[in-house]
């Protein structure tokens, strides 16, 4: 089988699958449609152009609470339980993802029940019940998530969220999407009603529909959602994230049997930028999520057995903790960041693992990809990216994300940009955007051991490593370098914190 023939087959297939997206507007409403008459399913993705960045100061969590109360509350006519009772026999689904920049309501139903489902779904959005009891239930759930899950029983999510807060200090991206404990505590039902009135206006609503729905549905939605106030969309201005000097470390202390690590820094690239596609190839080579392609995965897990997985990203990657192999749609950001995720490492090996990851990053920056690696990785991505959009629902999400970025459909853009790249383009992008210094590092460390762990980082203590297995000479030689690989820890900007103090306000 020749590689050239294989690529041709895949690309032809993709044209068939993606030729249907249509954009339109009605008043200030925006529509994206992927109609497929033969499909038995209908999917809605209704995006509200507001996210946690719109939370008022002191009311952090208001966007999330409002969205959750709409999706998990009632309508003017029906209580929450009555809504659930109606949806249940159809196995229809209504979810919401209140993200940083946007909030996405998703609905999925078999077309047998489309009319009744649409009435419910649209009533939830257009005529929310805003019941005091539902408000109390959802407010509790928000606070419990922060206090009893994120801070305490999900160390990998904690490491990622701590890194986000650390990178985006004093920036609208800096809080968890769900808010802060004090912010949520201070929110009243009136705050929610006022936020809804301000934000849920035509100017911010963007309706995506996919699947086997009748043509007339679009007109119905234009009429129904057209009754919302017109409103004005004002984009929240984003400051440039603060500079990073050296290696700034946040050690988060809580009971933990193994240490989760996330590290990274902002990069001025999104899917709209040409250089993004060069960096996409570099990142796939270095740390493609949940594959054995990446340097990080092969060197930390494959060669050394340090942990379960090691990956890198050039944009926010949602869904990774749930084991999803592909990026989830509808979590776009105007300002992106590069990050490395090391899954929990045995305590005695964590310092070494951090050094190893940064050593490999430095190698990537210094040496780049060989032409052979470049060709293999480019070829991989051209094929692999087609798998990201295996359902109409996912395709719709990706189409809408591309619109957000002001770029053509992401999967097509990959197919268009990658063949034009050279290995020199990729290596130039690495040099321009990546570095193994000036990086923020978040580590979740066991109770009572955080300060000692930080001290070993800050003093550049050698991180000796012991293996159960015999190792080849080349790995042992490399280990000698990694064991003392210097980390330029910025002691003024580094902190040791208790997890219970994070995300408080």
């Amino acid at each position, binding site marked *: 089988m020749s590689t050239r023939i294989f690529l041709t087959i*895949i690309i032809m297939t993709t044209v068939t699958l993606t030729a249907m997206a249509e954009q339109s507007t009605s008043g200030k409403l925006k529509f994206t449609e992927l109609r497929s008459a033969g499909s038995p399913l209908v999917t809605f993705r209704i995006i509200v152009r507001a996210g946690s960045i719109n939370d008022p100061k002191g009311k952090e969590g208001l966007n999330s609470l409002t969205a959750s109360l709409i999706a998990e509350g009632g309508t003017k006519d029906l209580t929450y339980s009555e809504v659930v009772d109606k949806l249940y026999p159809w196995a229809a689904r209504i979810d919401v993802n209140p993200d940083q920049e946007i909030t996405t309501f998703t609905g999925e139903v078999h077309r047998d029940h489309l009319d009744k489902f649409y009435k419910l779904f649209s009533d939830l959005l257009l005529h929310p019940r805003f019941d005091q009891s539902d408000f109390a239930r959802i407010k509790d759930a928000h606070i419990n998530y922060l206090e009893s899950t994120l801070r305490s029983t999900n160390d990998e999510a904690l490491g990622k969220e701590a890194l986000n807060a650390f990178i985006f200090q004093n920036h609208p991206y800096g809080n968890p999407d769900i808010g802060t404990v004090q912010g949520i505590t201070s929110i009243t039902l009136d705050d929610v009603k006022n936020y809804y009135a301000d934000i849920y206006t035509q100017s911010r609503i963007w309706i995506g529909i996919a699947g086997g729905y009748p043509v007339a549905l679009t007109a119905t939605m234009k009429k129904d959602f057209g009754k919302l106030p017109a409103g004005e969309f004002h984009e929240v201005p984003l400051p440039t994230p603060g500079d990073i000097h050296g290696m700034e470390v946040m050690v988060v202390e809580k009971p933990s049997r193994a240490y989760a690590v996330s590290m990274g820094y902002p990069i001025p690239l999104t899917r709209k930028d040409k250089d993004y596609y060069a960096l996409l190839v570099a990142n796939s080579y270095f740390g493609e999520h949940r594959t054995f392609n990446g340097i990080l995965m092969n060197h930390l897990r494959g060669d050394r057995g340090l942990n379960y997985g090691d990956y890198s990203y050039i944009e926010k990657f949602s869904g990774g903790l749930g084991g999803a192999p592909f990026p989830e749609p509808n979590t776009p950001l105007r300002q992106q960041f590069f990050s490395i995720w090391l899954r929990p490492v045995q305590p005695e090996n964590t310092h070494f693992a951090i050094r190893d990851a940064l050593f490999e990053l430095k190698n990537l920056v210094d040496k780049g990809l060989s032409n052979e690696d470049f060709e293999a990785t480019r*070829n991989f991505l051209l094929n692999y990216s087609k798998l990201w959009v*295996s359902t109409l629902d996912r395709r719709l999400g990706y189409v809408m994300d591309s619109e957000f970025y002001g770029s053509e459909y992401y999967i097509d853009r990959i197919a268009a940009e990658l063949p034009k790249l050279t290995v020199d383009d990729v290596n130039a992008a690495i040099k321009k955007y990546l570095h193994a210094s000036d990086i923020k590092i978040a580590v979740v460390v066991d109770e009572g051991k955080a300060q000692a762990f930080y001290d070993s980082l800050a003093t550049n203590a050698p991180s000796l490593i012991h293996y159960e297995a015999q190792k080849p000479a080349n790995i042992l030689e490399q280990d000698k370098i990694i064991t003392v690989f210097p980390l330029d820890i910025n002691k003024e900007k580094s902190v040791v914190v208790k997890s219970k103090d994070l995300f408080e306000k």
Partner: protein
Amino acid sequence: MEFTMVRFFGILTLLVPMLIVSAESHQHKIFPYKINQSTLPNGLRIVSIPFDSPGIIAYYTVVRTGSRNEVEPGKSGFAHFFEHMMFRGTEKYPEEKFNNMLKSIGADNNAFTSDDETVYHTVASASALETIMDMESDRFMNLKYSEAAFKTEAGAILGEYNKNSSSPFQTIDEKVRDAAYMEHTYKHSTMGFLKDIEDMPNQYQYSLTFFDRWYRPENCVVVVVGDQKKLVSLATKYYGSWKHGSYALNVPAEPPQNEDKFVQIPWKSRTLPILTVAFHGPAFSDTHTDMAALNLFSQLAFGETSDLYKKLVVQDQMVESLSGQMRQNRDPGLFFIFARIKKAKDIAAVRDAIDKTLEEAKTKPVSQSRLADVRSHLKYSFAMRLDDADHVAGTISQFIAMANDPESVNRYYALYDKITPKDIMNVVKKYFVNTNRTVALTQQEDHQ
């Protein structure tokens, strides 16, 4: 009853209007696609399912071996460990070459292990079918790894245990199984006992025995979903020389439980109290109705439309989440009820409310309309899941693992239409008795 059957046939023909090859032969089947089965002389079965996913196939190999097969002391977690070793290469395709070939075809390739199965799955271009079959057949027949690679992979296994260790649910699963089972291998989780995981680097020789026993054609089924041609002739070419095995497994039967059990699980980090109530249930069956009846009951009693859910979660707001689940296992599994309780003072009240629900269900029949809603929910959920080749292959693989027959899915879902309110009362009376129960309470240490 008849109305329900007709209605669902309508749903499923709409789902795949172009794909049902022979409508007559499928009209009472929940699974809407034709299932083609062939068996090679060595016992390997090949299942192919035509599916309209242009250019994409899902290629699954179901090994009917999971942690259930770990009958020897000290060897828990080995089926899962072995799943990892299957990525360590052969003479023909050493690890790096194996990965490079997967990369060259742009495949999504991974595996998972459960109590009863180990499943290797690949999604890739249909034109890569022969390449995938070449690689998969080679590692299933000719896996070869060094002791050093084996010991290194043991680190990744410990890492996998570690990554889940901050969640109380991994520990709850371990502790409840350990308390509820005395003899059967479901006593340990698929990850295995931690002491066995930590001893894995010393088990190289046993790993060779494990491969020899279980990675045999009569214990495996290859499932290909999508646009595929010449599948059987390719399978004969690549798997034909694989030798039949001879190992006979003797999983100890679990004796009846005869005492009410309680496990306290202290938790160092902050957590809401988690109440777990587990009962021994039946084995999976597509002919006997107990499993299907308990699955319906899990929805009726603990699902989001149940009276208990509405009371505890929505009205009184004592409980943040509530669920019930009958685990589908080859041998008798556990029925789990989980309640994540907001305040420790309400633990007793929640436990009483669960007990009351179970007692009432023994004598109070559910209404026909409520039962119809749950049947409808389960069937629509099933139909809506089959939205790409990967999900179709994953769904059918579960039934192969349970019943060794993909057609089992149709027989199992047909059972739902036979079950009456009286059948549900009968299974509740049969399984939900205190001497068959294990209760676990997980609480933050200083809140106990």
